[in-house]
């Protein structure tokens, strides 16, 4: 089978869909890239805003603590009772302050403690709130790392200690430590959201986490932050893996505020939307292309296809082809009209050629009929001469009459068609002459339906067949031959048949007989008879031979029934 070729509209559809798909994909890719960049940029912007806000909150809180420390500082002017009352009330009222402790600056001994509702341990094993190694400077606020409050009975909250130098009423320098849970900062940070899973946390300059919204997950070892990396990075944005870190240093405490957001999460959302749009667009384009291709096929390829199939039909059967012009575009109509004209012209030419051929053949055949086989003639005349010499005058007269009849009918004033009666007479004359010549070696019988005698037929139809029967069928026989000629009417046609009981023929011989062009005696062979019948009456008429070797041969000729001589152009 030949390689399958694509139709025009299929190619168009594939091309358009392909090109649109490719350009959409490229467009989507570019869009996604831009989108990703924009998203990252917007995340950076919002992250930096968030870190700024957290930084503000921290600074507010520190200002608040500074204010508190200043208030405590002013207690040096108070009486010890007033100071006691003031500090107790602060410890009691402020929920974020778990304990206020005072230490001797020189010795580091715990002097006083105000714990509000909480109970101070009698024996303090370890005091994490106060670090003797790290004392604040004058006027400075020192902030510790987050630690557990270790000085309260049955309570161990996580706190940050803020210490400052304050003078007591007697003028001695004390270190005041405020242990604070900074719950305000915590609750703010807990509510920070960046994207779906983004968050914000605070670490100190050494990379210790001060506050993390998932602090306990980190404690339980279920989560970790890459604090080493973050500690070594400067402020700004940092992309690490699929995360974006935005870092901002908080000036007062040297804390660093880190906002964390996830890139893939942001991009995934964009990608999903893009794919959705892409899918819908591709679908729309496909539908549009299908519609276009159907329209195109109607306008262009369908008429072309119709034209192609018309041409194929024309190739197969040029003569009986009739052309319906195809519609479609202007160019197509023009093309189709041209083809139509061409078809008509070709058919005209073909018809003319056929007519000319027929006329030529008829002329040829007429020329042949006019010929008299000299061999036959002198044989016959020889026989007559021999009869006269022999004194068989009666027979010689019959013979001469027969020969005269034969020639008269042969000529028939130049008519091709003659009544069957005449044709029978012609055949009889011929048989008579031959019977004389062959000395009664055979018998012949005519069986002609009465009404057929008035119909017309081609002249010299029977004679060549009889001649063939005599020469090929009977000549070589020892016993007496029989020739039977029948003419009858069948289905509106006239059938002639000539049977002999001679040696018969093989199939090949029969076929050769209808192809050979040479007449033996009268110059007209069997093929000539057949050709004439067909030229005059068409392909469905003509000669048919049935033959069995050693049995005999029957030749049938079918002709239409012609009740009067048609007008014949000469």
């Amino acid at each position, binding site marked *: 089978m030949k390689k399958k070729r694509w139709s025009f509209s299929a190619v168009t559809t594939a091309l358009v869909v392909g090109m649109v798909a490719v350009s959409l994909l490229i467009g989507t890719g570019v869009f996604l890239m831009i989108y990703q960049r924009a998203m990252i940029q917007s995340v950076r912007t919002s992250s930096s805003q968030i870190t700024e806000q957290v930084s503000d909150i921290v600074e507010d809180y520190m200002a608040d603590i500074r204010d508190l420390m200043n208030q405590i500082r002013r207690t040096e002017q108070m009486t010890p009772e007033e100071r006691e009352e003031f500090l107790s009330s602060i410890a009691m009222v402020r929920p974020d302050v778990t304990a206020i402790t005072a230490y001797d600056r020189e010795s580091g001994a715990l002097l006083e403690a105000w714990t509000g509702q909480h109970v101070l341990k009698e024996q303090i094993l370890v005091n994490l709130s106060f670090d003797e190694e790290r004392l604040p400077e004058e006027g400075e606020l020192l902030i510790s790392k987050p630690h557990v409050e270790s000085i309260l009975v049955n309570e161990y909250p996580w706190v940050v200690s803020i210490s400052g130098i304050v003078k007591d009423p007697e003028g001695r320098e004390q270190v005041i430590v405020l242990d604070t849970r900074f719950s305000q900062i915590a609750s703010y940070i807990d509510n920070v959201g960046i994207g779906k899973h983004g968050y914000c946390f605070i670490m100190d300059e050494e990379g210790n986490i001060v506050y993390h919204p998932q602090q306990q*997950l980190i*404690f339980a070892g279920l989560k970790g932050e890459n604090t080493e990396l973050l500690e070594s990075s400067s402020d700004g944005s940092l992309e690490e893996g699929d995360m974006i870190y935005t870092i901002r240093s908080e000036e007062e405490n040297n804390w660093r505020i880190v906002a964390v957001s996830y890139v893939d999460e942001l991009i995934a959302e964009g990608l999903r939307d893009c794919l959705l749009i892409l899918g819908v667009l*591709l679908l729309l384009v496909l539908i549009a292309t299908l519609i276009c291709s159907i329209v195109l096929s109607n306008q262009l390829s369908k008429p072309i296809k119709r034209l192609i199939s018309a041409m194929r039909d024309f190739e197969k059967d040029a003569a009986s082809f009739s052309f319906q012009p195809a519609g479609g575009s202007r160019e197509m109509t023009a093309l189709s009209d041209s083809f139509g004209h061409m078809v008509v012209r070709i058919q005209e030419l073909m018809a003319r050629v056929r007519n000319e051929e027929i006329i030529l053949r008829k002329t040829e055949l007429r020329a042949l009929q006019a010929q008299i086989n000299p061999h036959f003639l002198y044989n016959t005349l020889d026989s007559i001469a021999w009869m006269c010499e022999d004194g068989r005058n009666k027979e010689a007269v019959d013979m001469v009459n027969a020969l005269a009849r034969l020639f008269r009918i042969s000529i028939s004033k130049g008519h091709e068609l003659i009544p069957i009666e005449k044709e029978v007479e012609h055949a009889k004359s011929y048989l008579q002459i031959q019977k004389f010549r062959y000395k009664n070696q055979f018998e012949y019988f005519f069986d002609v339906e009465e009404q057929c005698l008035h119909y017309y037929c081609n002249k010299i139809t029977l004679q060549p067949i009889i001649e063939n029967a005599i020469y090929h069928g009977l000549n070589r026989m020892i016993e007496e031959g029989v020739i039977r000629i029948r003419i009858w009417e069948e289905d509106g046609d006239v059938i002639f048949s000539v049977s002999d009981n001679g040696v018969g023929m093989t199939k090949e011989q029969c076929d050769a007989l209808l192809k050979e062009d040479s007449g033996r005696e009268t110059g007209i062979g069997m093929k000539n008879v057949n050709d004439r019948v067909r030229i005059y009456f068409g392909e469905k008429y003509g000669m048919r031979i049935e033959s069995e070797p050693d049995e005999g041969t029957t030749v049938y000729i079918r002709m239409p029934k012609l009740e009067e001589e048609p007008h014949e152009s000469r």
Partner: protein
Amino acid sequence: MRVAKHKKQLLFGGLLLGCLLLGGGYLIYREAEGASAPRDPYRVAMIVKSTDSAFWKSVFAGAAVAATEYNVELTTEGPETEDDYETQNRLVKTAVEEGADAIIFSAVDYNANAEVITEAAEEGLPIVIIDSDVNSSLVSLRIGTVNEDAGSMAAEAVLTQTEGPLRIGVVNFDENTANGQEREQGFRDRMAEEDRVESIETINVLSTTEDARRGTKELLKQHPDLNAIVTFNEWTSLGVGWAISDLGRRDDIMVTAFDSNVVSVGMLETGEVDALIVQNPYAMGYLAVENACQILSGKEPEALHIDTETTLVTRDNMYLPEYQKILFMYD
């Protein structure tokens, strides 16, 4: 004829492509929907041994965080006392009837809880065991301390903090509870290697502070020469601590206790308790819910057992930064 056939092919091809695209688009849309619209939350029932100890509160806290993170509807329940396996069985049955998607379980009784858990598993519910095991082969995942190792760690603590011959009392809880028995086995296995050990006396008490306190006093009355006591859960730890405090023997008896709460931490500081084996209950709770959720969404757990770590906390290291994080919850 040819034209019509061709067009049919084209139309068919177009339709096919259209269907493909529509299908693809639908899948993408579904994917998008699935990703953006939250699924119905999984319903996970967490049924444990008790609800009011610091250990279990920490487990619940971890579980609650994971439940929020993974969109899980979590219920936490347990009997009032830690020997009430019947209540546990009833709670499991109720949870199954009420349509829980998965069960997180900690067994009071290794054998008596087995049947109900197997039944629940046969109903198709993934079972995640935390802390204390149950005798069922249909458990999807076990999360918790490696109890033998924890027992062995307790033995190490006793061995490093004492000198000379050892007469040890073990105050264990319900004999049918798997984790207590495993811890004691780990402890005894380790002690069997030591020549210093002269005797190990075990008593089993109810898992309450009061019963442990009473039991310990009785044990010390019968064996006044004990110089080390080991106990294996939060309540018995408190009971032992109180008994030592009552008898004023905090200096001559080395006590190794289990789990931490504010009281036992205070006792560690004041000396009634000398060492605490601290587990990671927060991680247990978190991991249990996280893994239950993953199993429900069709992901097979990577291992059949997830080990959570245990830490030995002593008076010397309890306020070191790393140990603070283990010992004290951030709330």
